[in-house]
């Protein structure tokens, strides 16, 4: 392989897949709106920076707790601190759902209406309880830098 190709390959590996990114962007736009190529590239780069930002902050939170592995609660705290608290509820919901589905498949792919001893209602209640816990942890946590939060309610997905 040509050295230039190798470098190009490495750069791509360190970025996000263009096709997936483009698809997600398009889903958010009205049907007749397009994105210029250079704007699209910049958006993708900004998302990579976002990953760096959240990872870095999560790592800080993790270190402060003297833990070695970045865990979900570190990420949630990082989102809060960096001004992206409005994402917390949505990503946490996805995470809880993901956990339930993972538990399901671990059980040898047996599809049950209820997971373990929990019915869907109980699972939802459990989720709400964990939300409250996470919120309490965050609110009771150490210094929270000033951040503007113009939208009181998450409204990212309509």
């Amino acid at each position, binding site marked *: 392989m040509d050295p230039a190709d190798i470098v190009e390959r490495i750069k791509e590996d360190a970025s*996000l897949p263009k096709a997936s990114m483009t698809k997600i962007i398009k889903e958010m736009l009205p049907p007749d709106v397009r994105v*210029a190529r250079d704007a699209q590239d910049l958006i993708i*780069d900004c998302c990579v920076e976002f990953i760096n930002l959240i990872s*870095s902050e999560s*790592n800080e939170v993790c270190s402060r707790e003297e833990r070695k592995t970045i865990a979900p609660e570190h990420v949630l705290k990082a989102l809060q601190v960096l001004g992206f608290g409005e994402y917390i509820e949505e990503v946490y919901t996805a995470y809880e759902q993901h956990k339930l589905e993972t538990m399901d498949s671990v059980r040898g792919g047996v599809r049950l209406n209820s997971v373990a001893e929990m019915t869907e209602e109980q699972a939802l209640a459990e989720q709400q309880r964990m939300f409250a816990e996470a919120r309490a942890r965050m609110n009771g946590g150490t210094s929270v830098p000033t951040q503007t939060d113009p939208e009181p309610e998450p409204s990212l997905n309509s």
Partner: protein
Amino acid sequence: MTTEHDEDGGATTEEPHHPSLPISRIKRIMKLDKDINKVNSEAAFLITCSTELFLQFLAERSAQVVLERKKKTIKLDHFRVAVKQHQPTNDFLLDCLPNNSEVVPKESRGSGSKKDVGASGSKKIEAFFNKCS
């Protein structure tokens, strides 16, 4: 991002239960930072979902700017305006610059380590935002 089981009245909005972005790729990007040791796979999942939300947010806001101006194609200018409208996003995209005089020192901004491979992306962002100040 799929809606499942909408028969019961479809109150569910689209939630990223299954992120469209590859978690493994995001984990790889994270690991490029030498200060980051281990990442729990669930944490990587959360970051993947967050990144997807962020992307949607950027796209949505840019589209709003474009529509306000009665245009059809999102250009760099529209994206720039959209970013400036959201303080936290504005802060971090400017803050990733090495020597921006407008940078307000953050109390916790991580190690600030720059990865060689990601530097080209940062430089582009730097050039982009320096143009408008």
